[in-house]
């Protein structure tokens, strides 16, 4: 068996280098690179376009094309996240926390090369881990039932605490809000539409793409509009740094490998995947670092950990897809459709008689990654120059792409509105030092953990808690995650109440011992009150639902109300200093009045741009918004202004014609 395994493995390698397979791989790399670089648009859009086309191809060529596209788009999305602070794909949002600050500092080249090189290692580790695990992977996955999967999601949720370091209360509130957001939609058990406000678009829940784009992209665009600067804030440093990046990866090799394994393992669990594993890898990078304060300000570990996990997860998520027919993500669902059309049915045969096919997938992942990284490395210095482009030119293009990304994810105009709401929240959270990662992690884990909880309960009732694997996982959870967390929390509160400023990360401005009540009434308080009222409404709204639909909203809603009330009360009583998350940086030297005025202008322009797109469609709305921006707000030179408008028009047209994204014509024109 092992001999067979090895020879199939070697044959798979050479199989990739036969014509036309290699040709389709190169095509996939190209398509993946383009869609990956576009913010919000990722493998899903590309695969949707390619899928009907692949039915006409030979199976090996078809799968090579699809897998290469998926792999490289994950890689290329990382580049967008690092360069622009705009998630290239929701699954690479974690890179914004440290990769983007590096780009700002003028170290884009280093961040990119560290990330790409780590991705490469991640893809290789992931692929080889799968190969090594092939003899045991089926029994392993089958030994996991709904109760074990539920515990795995709970372990994921505990990472919320890791991602809130520096601002535990705020992080906990954000995480609970994220969990609550994940409950929007028809509940899987009794089919009751929860928190949908009568809108059918919300029945399937709130999409990750609009929220991730809103939370991460909008604040950066906002920042560019307000500061009127380019992304890189310094001009003196080298934008290259490619070699330093590679050296960083070698220096942190064990972290890279550990993060790769996290990615693989999370990828294997059905229903999870890169949107979860990137945060767990990031949390692990923070947790394992001796100097946690560097994170959020451009620590290179934050750029390489999630990059590795993101790519290693691809190999992992192939396992449930091809071994069991359970796609963990939309790209995998599309891949599954392609398998079925080509007569390949997922199941044990993929790990025995069709093993050669599985091996060729593994090789396509590794080789397309290598080709992309090797091809991209020499150009990283050039790519990094983008961070020096003046914001006035960048803003309209990025805004257009962000809105297109938000729309293209599910083809709904309502998602533009969601992006704006998430963007407003994102701006407030960044300015006030509330960590955004817990919100996103809560959002990706809440729905799925509820699903597994209910299948577990409805199958075994409370007996599911006594299954041996569940007990082991509970033990792991208690010892590894909760215990240190509780101890730290306890110590933190004790030191805090003794007046230590251990939790103040950014040298907060209110150092005076007893400030007047008026100064305690600020926007933080508003967010706290918002959380209280949101939680209260969620709890009240759930009151007349059957227990199956109500349990999770209450399990999340009551703690949310309690903790945010505690936060508000403590704040009013001035117990302890204002927490500021280490991941969020207030960054401006502008005086208060200019800041507010420009913020108002930025907000109005962003909302106006979305409104214009809604009213007269992307084709006209995006150029119009661009024209308003360049001519009126940024006051660029006429030539540059015309160039901007033309570029945006061209972009929309290209995405429409070349990627086949169907834009609605706008409520006025339609």
């Amino acid at each position, binding site marked *: 068996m092992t001999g067979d395994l090895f020879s199939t493995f070697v044959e798979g390698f050479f199989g990739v280098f036969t014509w036309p397979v290699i040709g389709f791989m190169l095509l996939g790399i190209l398509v993946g690179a383009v869609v990956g670089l576009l913010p919000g648009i990722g493998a899903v859009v590309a695969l949707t376009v390619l899928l009907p086309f692949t039915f006409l191809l030979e199976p090996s060529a078809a799968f090579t094309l699809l897998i290469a596209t998926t792999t490289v788009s994950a890689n290329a999305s990382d580049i967008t996240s690092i360069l622009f602070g705009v998630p290239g794909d929701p699954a690479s949002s974690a890179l914004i926390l440290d990769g983007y600050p590096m780009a700002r500092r003028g170290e884009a080249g280093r961040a990119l090369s560290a990330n790409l090189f780590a991705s490469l290692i991640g893809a290789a580790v992931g692929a080889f881990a799968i190969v090594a695990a092939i003899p045991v992977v089926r029994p392993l996955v089958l030994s996991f039932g709904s109760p074990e999967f539920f515990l795995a999601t709970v372990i994921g949720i505990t990472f919320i605490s890791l991602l809130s370091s520096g601002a535990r209360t705020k992080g906990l509130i954000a995480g609970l809000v994220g969990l609550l957001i994940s409950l929007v939609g028809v509940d899987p058990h009794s089919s009751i539409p929860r928190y949908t*406000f009568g809108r059918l678009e919300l029945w399937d829940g709130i999409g990750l793409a609009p929220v991730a784009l809103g939370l991460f992209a909008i604040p950066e665009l906002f920042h560019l509009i307000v500061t009127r600067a380019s992304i890189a804030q310094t001009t003196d440093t080298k934008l290259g740094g490619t070699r330093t990046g590679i050296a960083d990866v070698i220096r942190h090799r064990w972290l890279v490998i550990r993060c790769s394994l996290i990615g693989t393992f999370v990828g294997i669990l*059905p229903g999870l995947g890169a949107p979860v594993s990137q945060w767990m890898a990031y949390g692990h990078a923070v947790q394992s670092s001796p100097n946690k304060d560097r994170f959020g300000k451009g620590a290179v570990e934050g750029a390489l950990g999630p990059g590795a996990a993101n790519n290693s997860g691809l190999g992992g998520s192939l396992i449930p897809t091809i071994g*069991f027919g359970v796609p963990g993500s939309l790209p995998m669902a599309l891949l599954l459709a392609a398998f*079925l059309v080509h007569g390949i049915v997922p199941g044990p045969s993929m790990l025995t008689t069709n093993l050669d096919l599985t091996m060729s997938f593994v090789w396509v992942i590794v080789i397309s990654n290598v080709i992309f990284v090797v091809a991209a490395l020499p150009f990283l210095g050039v790519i990094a120059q983008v961070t020096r482009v003046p914001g006035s030119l960048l803003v309209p293009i990025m805004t257009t792409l962000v809105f297109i990304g938000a729309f293209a994810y599910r083809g709904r105009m309502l998602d533009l509105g969601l992006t704006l709401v998430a963007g407003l929240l994102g701006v407030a959270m960044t300015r006030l030092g509330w960590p955004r990662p817990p919100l996103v992690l809560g959002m990706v884990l809440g729905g799925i953990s509820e699903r597994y909880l209910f299948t577990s309960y409805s199958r075994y009732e409370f007996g599911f808690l006594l299954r041996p694997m569940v007990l082991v996982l509970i033990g792991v959870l208690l010892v590894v995650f909760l215990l240190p967390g509780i101890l730290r929390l306890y110590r933190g509160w004790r030191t805090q109440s003794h007046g230590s400023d251990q939790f103040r990360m950014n040298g907060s401005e209110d150092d005076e011992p007893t400030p007047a009540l008026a100064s305690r009434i600020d926007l933080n308080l508003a967010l706290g009150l918002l959380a209280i009222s949101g939680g209260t409404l969620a709890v009240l709204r759930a009151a007349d639902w059957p227990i199956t639909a109500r349990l999770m909203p209450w399990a999340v809603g009551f703690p949310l109300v309690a903790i945010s009330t505690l936060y508000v009360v403590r704040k009013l009583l001035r117990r302890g200093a204002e927490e500021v998350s280490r991941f969020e940086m207030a960054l401006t030297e502008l005086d208060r009045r200019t800041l507010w005025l420009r913020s108002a202008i930025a907000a109005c322009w962003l909302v106006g741009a979305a*409104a214009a797109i809604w009213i007269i469609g992307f084709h006209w709305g995006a150029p119009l918004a661009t024209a308003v921006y360049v001519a009126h707000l940024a006051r660029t030179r006429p030539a540059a202004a015309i160039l901007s408008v033309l570029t945006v028009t061209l972009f929309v047209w290209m995405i429409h014609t070349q990627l086949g994204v169907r834009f609605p014509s706008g409520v006025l024109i339609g």
Partner: protein
Amino acid sequence: MLKDASGLGNQPVDLKNKASAAAHGYMEAPVMRQRSHNLLVLCVVLGMVAGACATESVPDTTEPAPTVTQPAADTTEPAADTTQPTAPEPVALPDEITLLVGFAPGGAFDLATQVVARHLPGHLPGEPNVIVEHRPGAGTMLAANATFNTEPQDGSVIATFFFSLIVEQAIGRAEGVAFDGREFQWLASMRTTEAVCFVAEHSAIDSIEDIMNGEELVVSATGPMSVSGAHPRLLNHVLGTNFRVVLGYEGLGGAFLALEGEEVDGICTTTDTALSLARLDQGVMSPIILFGEEPPVDIHPAYEGTPSIWDFGPTDSDIRLIDLLTAADRIYVPYAVGPDVPSDVVAVLRASFESMLMDPAFVADFEEAGGGQLGPSTGEEIEEVVDMILSTPQELLAQLGDALGIEE
């Protein structure tokens, strides 16, 4: 075919007025020269836009579901036209026709529709451009509601959605139904499926009689209205079986994973699903009861000798319930246009679908890439089934709703 009397037809006009009012306000904004005022104007415009947004959502929500009591407006006249080999008068078809899929890409509906999109243009007069658009949401209800209410009524939008929506409309307990199945103008459907329940090899149960005699069979299911959720509960109602349905698995793949991991002991799904056939090949499960009358041995030899629900002498009211629930299995991947599409356009579209379904090139392509065997129904046949579903007596529908565990 007079449809203008229905209140629903007026809404799009209303909407447009509101939207254009908001748009006028917006267009004025860039003309303003003073920057601070500019701001205010933009913000005011936003308020108006928000207002328009709010009003737009109204038709979706507050519009009462159309009553099902009014008799069906039978639309059999156009059928006479379509059977004529030459459809002489040129009917103005739109230049571009969108096939609106109520699911995300990659599923059975998408696969079938992609094949249709490749072949339909050749059968339409003037060979218009045919494109596929996905609008997933609310178990395809989003696409159905949009096609009924807000999409253009000129034949440029042909939708495909779950036929079980009509059953949900009949039961009348589902939220969000903003269409009337009888007013949809049905063109054709692509596939016919049959439901079946399987028992896993690891279970001690080996026949339906065991479950009828009180032994419990735990089955995994996705949602309450899916075949995996609804059909075993119907069996409990009709045959007095003891299926315990565990709901909430993520997709059919998730439900099968639970079976293989021995979390559940059985599953109900359709006879020709690739996932089922592969597991029949491996011998990890065997069929115990069919919803069709004859064992589909042409699909898989394992179905040989499997009893059917019809073998157990269902009562007349049970027969109606079985017919009602299995209608959605028989009409799989249906295509329909909205209620106000002119009848001559509908006639041309129906004729085009019919001619496409006869085309050997289409049949061959569908068998290869359509996601299953071709088993078409005509628009007229679908109309009859819709009529059957919606004319079911209320007390029977209430019984079905209770049996399926659908909350009022």
